[in-house]
């Protein structure tokens, strides 16, 4: 193979896989009967989802008065969870689009699952704006369309409306990207299936044959979608940060918000990818495709983005002090020392301090440490959003209206329900689609297979390359 691979690269596919073995291994989870652990986990997910649906229906029936929001604290769990989920979604697009543009071969092991995670996380996120407006039956007022109300249009100056466009675009483009990648793999499953399964996968695979011209166009499409998704993913969390940054609330009205939110989003998203990958590779026995190498690469991203987030926290504190503006100074003093000090502490400990252990290679390559760290980061990033939203609002300009917010059982139930929704979707996905992109792993096999590179290599690139050249001439 005429690929040039640096000798320092370690294998990305282990076990001396042949193309056929890759097909077998990656199709197998969709072909065998679900395991007992899958069934139990699925029942728990669906039960959690059902409770969330009940709490959402309760909110819609009784009104948003069932939440503990008040005049002072108008955003609480709803927007915290919205920002948390939308941030989690960012890693999928980062892995599939940005790492594709940078030609990072390790993305092929995790991109499919990460993209699926993006789509499910965005669904969870989108639920919150829809229910927090209170009257979900007129939620289509979000969108501009010729109407009988004037015609009255939405305010195109508002970051909240920009968010509607950003998130709808992000969701639909991520879906196209994900599905276009899935089509050839669905064709692989189709060609192995019989009976009803064959009919279903025939429908899903759109009649894909693997013709050279189709692959050429498919690669062209994937590359441009990656190029479009890269600024798109950066724009989405930038616009989410505008929801805060364009207001006149001390602690929100800062120009650092867009990069700080984007870094935080990637940070939390990678943590969720790690949580899912560590479980997935174990349960589906995909350790040879989602290797320690992949886990280490993602831990490096977590370390970098976590440190960026830490620098942003410190910059905020410094600028608050340096501004000489008493309301700004109070906002940050209140975050760290005020009534919600515990949430600021949780944020700092989980997001800034704990990821620093990933400077040590042993921890970066430990599945156990990675799993616990990924949970810490998920918690820490949730606290970050809670700090920004609830803490800031609880102490506004007028001390007489200062308040303290704790969620009701309904708000907590909706949050838990979205976690159930996320895992329900993810678990169905692991049964229906190959969790690792089959065609893309085959494509990198000669550059990343352990029979070609690394200690256990049996083929030698130079010899083979030389041989192929001579036989060609």
């Amino acid at each position: 193979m005429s690929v040039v691979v640096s000798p320092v690269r370690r294998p990305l596919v282990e076990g001396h896989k042949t193309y056929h073995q890759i097909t077998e291994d990656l199709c197998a989870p969709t072909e065998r009967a679900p395991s007992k652990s899958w069934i139990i986990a699925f029942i728990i997910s669906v039960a959690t989802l059902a409770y969330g649906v009940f709490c959402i229906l309760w909110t819609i029936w009784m009104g948003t008065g069932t939440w503990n929001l008040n005049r002072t604290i108008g955003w609480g769990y709803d927007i915290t969870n919205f920002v948390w989920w939308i941030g989690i979604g960012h890693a999928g697009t980062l892995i599939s689009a940005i790492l594709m543009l940078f030609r990072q071969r390790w993305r092929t092991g995790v991109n499919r699952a990460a993209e699926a995670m993006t789509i499910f996380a965005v669904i969870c996120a989108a639920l919150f704006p829809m229910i927090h407006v209170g009257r979900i039956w007129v939620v289509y007022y979000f969108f501009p369309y010729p109407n009988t109300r004037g015609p009255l249009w939405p305010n195109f100056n508002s970051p909240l409306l920009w968010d509607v466009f950003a998130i709808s675009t992000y969701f639909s483009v991520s879906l196209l990207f994900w599905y276009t990648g899935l089509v050839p793999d669905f064709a692989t499953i189709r060609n192995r299936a019989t009976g009803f399964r064959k009919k279903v996968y025939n429908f899903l695979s759109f009649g894909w044959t693997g013709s050279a011209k189709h692959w050429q166009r498919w690669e062209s499409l994937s590359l441009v979608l990656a190029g479009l998704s890269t600024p798109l993913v950066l724009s989405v969390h930038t616009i989410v940060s505008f929801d805060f940054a364009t207001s006149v609330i001390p602690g929100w009205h800062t120009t650092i918000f867009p990069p700080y939110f984007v870094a935080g989003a990637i940070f939390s998203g990678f943590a969720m990818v790690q949580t899912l990958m560590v479980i997935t590779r174990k349960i589906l026995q995909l350790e040879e495709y989602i290797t320690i190498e992949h886990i280490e690469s993602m831990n490096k991203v977590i370390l970098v983005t976590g440190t960026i987030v830490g620098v942003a926290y410190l910059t905020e504190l410094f600028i608050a002090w340096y501004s000489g503006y008493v309301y700004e100074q109070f906002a940050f003093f209140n975050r760290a020392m005020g009534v919600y000090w515990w949430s600021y502490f949780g944020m700092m400990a989980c997001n800034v301090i704990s990821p620093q252990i990933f400077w040590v290679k042993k921890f970066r390559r430990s599945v156990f440490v990675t799993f616990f760290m990924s949970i810490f980061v998920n918690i820490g990033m949730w606290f970050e959003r809670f700090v920004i939203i609830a803490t800031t609002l609880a102490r506004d300009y007028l001390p007489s209206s200062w308040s303290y917010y704790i969620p009701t059982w309904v708000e907590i139930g909706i949050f838990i329900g979205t976690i159930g929704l996320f895992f329900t979707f993810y678990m169905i996905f692991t049964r229906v689609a190959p969790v690792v992109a089959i065609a893309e792993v085959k494509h990198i096999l000669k550059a990343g297979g352990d029979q070609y590179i690394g200690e256990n290599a049996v083929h030698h690139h130079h010899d083979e390359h030389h041989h192929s050249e001579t036989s060609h001439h």
Partner: protein
Amino acid sequence: MRQYHKEVIYGLYNDEEILIRAVRNARGKHLEIMDVYTPFPVHGLDHAMGLEESRLHQAGFVYGMLGTLTAFLGMTWIFTRDWPIIFGGKPHWPVPSFIPITFELTVLFAAWGMTITFYTICGLWPGVSNPQLDLRTTDDKFCIAFDRSEVSDSDARAFFSETGAEEVNTKSI
């Protein structure tokens, strides 16, 4: 199932490097290749076959521009002609605050336009069944196919045995 009414002779290869060498060989012999089927995108195959560059990205640019214009002109029309509203004394034509939505619609139109174009020109759509020569070409086999009305069976078989095909079959699709 779609029908092409073609008689095809095809050879299956085990490796993409052997495939590319075979494709180059066929071009050297002026044997007209009907199509090549592979389980994954093989880089350099399109050049070896002499396929034209895809112009899909150019279509994407046009779709993107369409999105830019739709968003920008749409918002301009709404805020200056259809229903001008005063928001806090700000101008009726606030160009900077149109940027985010204009960007989003550019991406949206380009992505959807390109994807729909891709599936349409490839003849891929939900429920479509295109004829397949061999089911293993989505697994681990690489296939070169000749139209039997273009290339004689004896030329094709000689070519396949020379270039290292593992199997040679005929099929009408």
